[in-house]
């Protein structure tokens, strides 16, 4: 607008109400999608069941409380969200496992993270939750391997390996933050977990699992600022 005729942003004549409403709704949609770094609205073909979601949220909440107590901070302290509005956007992600190949003593689980959370994402914390159904009394050793694709071929290589001993049925947690960060840094979005039990143990994993005991990864992530750009 020519100087002196008012602010260009608010000096124009308002459109008719119906057009204005359409424009505002389009603006709202565009704004939400761009802030979530989504090119378009996701098409959801398979919803997570309510039971699965509630269990996962309860487990997450319980662990956050444990962390808060062990750090001797007040229970009502919000340890998950620190500073929305500072130009850094944080995410909490629940990723449920897709079943991969499995045998009587070996199970593979695959967790896929959307590409919007790729190379520019910093993983603050990531925990794998597994529900064990111990087949009988005694202790049950389990080998957990985090796998990553072999750059030279179609096979998977072992990124890290841990031994767990299961005493009873229940949830177990594993820190997979470094592994997930490493994958993201390589531009990959899938985390593959292999669970292996001894030959005579049977498979305590997944058999007969209900939805609410489905393995999942709970991650906290933060969008990294682009290199060379600082926001004040």
């Amino acid at each position, binding site marked *: 607008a020519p*100087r*002196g005729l*008012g*602010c*260009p*942003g*608010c*000096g124009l004549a*308002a459109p008719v109400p119906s057009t204005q409403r359409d424009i*505002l*709704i389009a*603006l*709202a*949609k565009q*704004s*939400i999608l761009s*802030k*979530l770094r*989504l090119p378009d*609205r*996701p*098409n*959801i*073909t*398979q*919803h*997570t069941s309510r039971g699965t*979601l509630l269990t*996962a949220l309860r487990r997450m909440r319980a662990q956050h409380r444990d962390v808060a107590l062990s750090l001797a901070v007040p229970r009502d302290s919000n340890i998950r*969200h620190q500073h*929305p*509005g*500072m*130009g850094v*956007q*944080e*995410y*909490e*992600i*629940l*990723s*449920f496992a897709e079943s991969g190949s499995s045998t009587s003593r070996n199970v593979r689980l695959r967790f*896929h*993270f*959307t*590409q*919007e959370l790729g190379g520019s994402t910093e993983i603050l914390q990531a925990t794998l939750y597994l529900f064990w159904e111990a087949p009988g009394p005694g202790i049950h050793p389990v080998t957990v391997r985090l796998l990553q694709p072999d750059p030279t071929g179609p096979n998977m290589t072992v990124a890290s390996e841990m031994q767990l001993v299961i005493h009873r049925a229940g949830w177990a947690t594993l820190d997979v933050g470094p592994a997930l960060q490493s994958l993201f840094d390589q531009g990959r979005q899938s985390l593959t977990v292999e669970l292996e039990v001894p030959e005579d143990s049977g498979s305590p994993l997944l058999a007969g699992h209900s939805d609410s005991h489905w393995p999942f990864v709970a991650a906290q992530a933060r969008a990294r600022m682009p290199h060379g750009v600082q926001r004040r």
Partner: protein
Amino acid sequence: STDCGGDSGMCCRQEFFVDFKEIGWEDWIIQPEGYHMNYCSGICPLHMAGIPGLAASFHTAVLSLIKANNADAAGDSCCVPTQRRPLSLLYYDRDSNIVKTDIPDMIVDACGCT
């Protein structure tokens, strides 16, 4: 900051709610049910410029006087958001993972003249 309502036409906050069900987004956004977007509208006379946050300041009063007496030097004034807050979303991403995030500065809480 005032909410729009009367016919004054002065800078104010206009409430605007986008219902996710109405736009067909309720299948991927779990919470909340809608977005209180809001926006600013109205005119900003020169003497109101610089008011947000500095209304009681002596310097602002001086500045307003200068602006009122010298429109060329003052430039234009806009009705803009002066206070905003984040929008918390719980949603399904493209891989059907569930994500919670706070998108900063999405909800207009107050408006004022620049």
